[in-house]
């Protein structure tokens, strides 16, 4: 069953057409990979889905509900969490405070209560434990290594219990040990029902982890299917390597 769908999305920046009538469906409860050469529009598509960019045309549907005009906070409130290609944490806050920022509270009175109160505090501690950062809870987040910052970003999305997590190049700059740890966390959360959409260039990581892979090229969807099918498709090889290389291959 489709959880998140984009229909005929187009987006241009001046003369550059980043997305051209892009249509894709992401299945509920699956780990979906989103791959494509640099400049194929993957991050722009993430920006459109999460409300950072307004598309020039097309629709974003979450469980059939139109989210095209939703703001980033509304998208997050609807259960769509996102990490960035370059980590975006709050460097001067502690690691624990970072996780608490994402915990949702409704109403002014609740907002004025101490941030460490309520169930969310336990959830925040659980999230940190889940990614293995508990021992660094009181440290300034800016002092973490790049890989640890990726895990922290993952933890603070997790604390809001999203139904979909969009991960933009989670493997970039992460050492193999942390990467295995991250892959394990993704699988564990997916087993609990969280849907993932992962943009990644590390093909080993994508093919080993994802149930379904979508390929983008020149701002539109080129191919969707199971990892083995996608890998074997000559059109995908051509998109990645160019015509001559694909033929030689």
């Amino acid at each position, binding site marked *: 069953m489709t959880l998140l769908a984009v229909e005929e999305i187009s987006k241009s920046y001046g003369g550059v057409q980043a997305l051209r009538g892009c249509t894709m469906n992401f299945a509920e409860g699956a780990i979906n990979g989103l791959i494509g050469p640099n400049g194929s529009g993957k991050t722009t598509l993430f920006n459109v889905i*999460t*409300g*950072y960019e307004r598309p020039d045309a097309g629709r974003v549907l979450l469980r059939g509900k139109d989210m095209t005009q939703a*703001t*980033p*906070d509304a*998208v*997050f*409130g609807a259960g769509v969490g*996102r990490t*960035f290609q370059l980590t*975006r*944490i*709050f*460097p*001067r*806050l*502690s690691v624990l*405070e970072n996780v*608490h*920022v*994402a*915990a*949702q*509270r409704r109403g002014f009175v*609740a*907002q*004025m*209560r*101490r*941030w460490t109160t309520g169930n969310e505090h336990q959830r925040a501690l659980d999230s940190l434990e889940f990614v293995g950062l508990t021992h660094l809870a*009181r*440290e*300034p987040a800016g*002092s973490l290594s790049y890989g640890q910052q990726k895990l922290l970003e993952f933890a*603070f999305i997790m604390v*809001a219990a999203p139904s979909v997590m969009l991960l933009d190049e989670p493997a970039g700059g992460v050492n193999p040990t942390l990467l295995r740890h991250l892959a394990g966390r993704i699988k564990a959360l997916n087993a609990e029902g969280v849907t993932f959409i992962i943009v990644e260039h590390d093909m080993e990581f994508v093919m080993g982890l994802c149930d379904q892979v979508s390929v983008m090229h020149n701002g539109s969807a080129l191919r969707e299917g199971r990892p083995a099918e996608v890998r074997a498709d000559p059109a995908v090889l051509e998109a990645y390597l160019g015509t001559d290389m694909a033929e030689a291959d």
Partner: protein
Amino acid sequence: MTSAFVPANYDLPRSVRLSALGIAALALVLFPVVFPNPAVTSVGVFAMIYLLSVSGWNIFSGYSGYIALGHAVFFGIGQYSSALLTSHFNVPPGWDSFALLPVAAALAGIAAVPIGFILLRVRKHTFIVLTIAVMFIFQLLAFNLRSWTGGSQGLQMPFPTWTGDFFNQPFYYVGLGASAIAIAVSWWVRRSKFGLGLLAIRDDEDRARSLGIHTTRTKLIAFVLSAVFVGAAGAIYAPFVGSVFPQFAFDPSFDLALAVMAFTGGLGTLVGPAVGALVIGSVQQYFLLQFGGANTFLIVYGLLFVLILRLLPDGVVPSIALQWRHWVARRERARAHSDLSPPPDLETRIEVPVEQGRSAQ
């Protein structure tokens, strides 16, 4: 300057912090009793007005990172509100005039809603420039709306009939009480989920928004809160000096003073801006008393600002706190090292004669 990384769990013990706070509070309460000279208590009143203003200003600018250089607008609104309400309702000078304080503060807060709504649509340098522009717009309005403000003639307020020795003390204690409320609110905000949202905005506003924080609403509430306290400071200042003039009510050097005080003490910390206000506010008044109204203190402000940004960019209080944490971390490492060294009796047992050791090689 980049601070070396030090683990965070070496904070000053809670008991020490509470004791220091208690001693500081006691010293402030006893100050006019120990130093009753009116020239000295007058300096104290100005220090309290700055303490109240900068504590309020810090709730917005310190926590959100939006440096507002136009809060003189609310200081002026507080002053004009106090003067106009006193005249309109024939409020007798003295204790009764302090009853207008919450009203003037509320009016400043109400004015902050549309101002904040417009200003908070922009960020960074544009925000700073616009806050200054709005301050000058209000100064021009005060000069030109003569039927309300008296224009350049200003408004005069009746002085209380207290004796000279006693005159400053009610203003001092009202200022101290209001400052205590402002610091308490600031403390509350810092510990709240709302305050955490402000700090997240300071670090990365777009990221905060993407995590479900209503950034515009959060900033606006903080802006209004800060305006309330700065307006209250204006409502203490006006009856204390007995007059309100546009150029002093909406004075750019007031905003400069708040920024210098907060940066010196430690922007965005609870105690730092208060320390900055008490020290710099008092020094400023000392310069005024010594050198008259030549604004010599502005030169000192400039020099101090450059020195602080150069040597202690985090401010005095956070720098001291960091030094403390370095010291505790070093002490902990030294203790851990001494725990690892072998006990004396073990040393004697494993001692190898130097000559024997050499021959073995």
